[in-house]
């Protein structure tokens, strides 16, 4: 086997892989490992939330009562649809239908944007009512019954903020994928970046699936 030319797998196989299959498997494993770190990072927040929720159930209930579950459920639906279109874009690429994939990718980006807009409405309403994390919480304005209600909003803003950051990063990545799809760089032989970003995007969806009942409903 030669050191830097490739007899098969198109032009996308790096020199240290045997073939496209080898590269795909390795890349995918790397992505899954990265997802483990995402789960553990968000997980730290979930564990903290669960512990303090069990210590101060009433304070958490008060915090949750200020959230609008309709906004939360709407956002859940938006993310589900975006996950669907993301998965479909890979389906199309595998079948060689890169135009359809391109469209699906853009729909995903638009869904992400809708999610962020709804989130922005939610945030601004929280800001207006003085519902802010920690000592920024306006106790007088919110008529908070619990002096440390700021902790609930600490969790709320940390979790949704970190999640929102992931949505933004995901949108950026998907736009990059859409551009590359348009350039015809992806096809049935090579779609690893799309697969990877897809898994990332679904993780974002997955985390929201838990955040929604945790923050908005159970409280």
């Amino acid at each position, binding site marked *: 086997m030669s050191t830097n030319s490739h007899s098969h797998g198109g032009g996308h196989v790096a020199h240290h892989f*045997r073939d496209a299959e080898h590269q795909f498997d390795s890349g995918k494993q790397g992505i899954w490992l990265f997802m483990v770190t995402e789960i553990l990072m968000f997980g730290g927040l979930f*564990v903290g939330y*669960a512990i303090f929720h069990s210590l101060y159930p009433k304070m958490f209930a008060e915090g949750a009562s200020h959230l609008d579950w309709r906004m939360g459920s709407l956002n859940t639906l938006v993310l589900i649809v975006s996950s669907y279109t993301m998965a479909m874009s890979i389906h199309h690429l595998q079948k060689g239908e890169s135009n359809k994939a391109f469209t699906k990718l853009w729909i995903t980006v638009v869904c992400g944007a809708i999610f962020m807009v709804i989130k922005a409405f939610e945030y601004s309403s929280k800001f207006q009512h003085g519902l802010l994390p920690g000592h920024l919480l306006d106790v007088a304005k919110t008529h908070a019954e619990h002096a440390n209600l700021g902790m609930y909003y600490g969790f709320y803003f940390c979790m949704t903020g970190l999640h929102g950051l992931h949505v933004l990063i995901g949108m950026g990545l998907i736009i990059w994928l859409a551009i590359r799809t348009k350039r015809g760089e992806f096809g049935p032989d090579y779609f690893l970046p799309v697969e990877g970003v897809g898994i990332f995007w679904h993780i974002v969806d997955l985390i929201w699936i838990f955040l929604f009942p945790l923050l908005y409903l159970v409280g």
Partner: protein
Amino acid sequence: MGSHSDKHSGGGHHSHHIIPQEIYTRVMWALIVLTAFTVGFHYLFHVVMHGSVLAAPVAFLIAAIKAALVLMFFMGLKYDKPENRWIFSTGFIFLALLFVICMLDIFTRISETSTL
């Protein structure tokens, strides 16, 4: 982990499973319906029954089912290599470890009180 063998034949064949569109569509609808269930149960438990111990377990059970659907189909873990399934599950195992031991500590502390 040491047991998996080198089975890379070196051929350029691509046997990636293409998940049919209709599965994706069904999963999406299932997720939407389950979200409706979540909201419905929330309404039932909080507005009709004014709180119930079941509220949280039901909400998280539904969330777990939804998560499983996303994992298996959208993320394709159902069709993926077993080692990737193992890798992904370790994240949850170690998270559970962190959670269980922190809870163990916090709820077995003997609280001392001031006697002044």
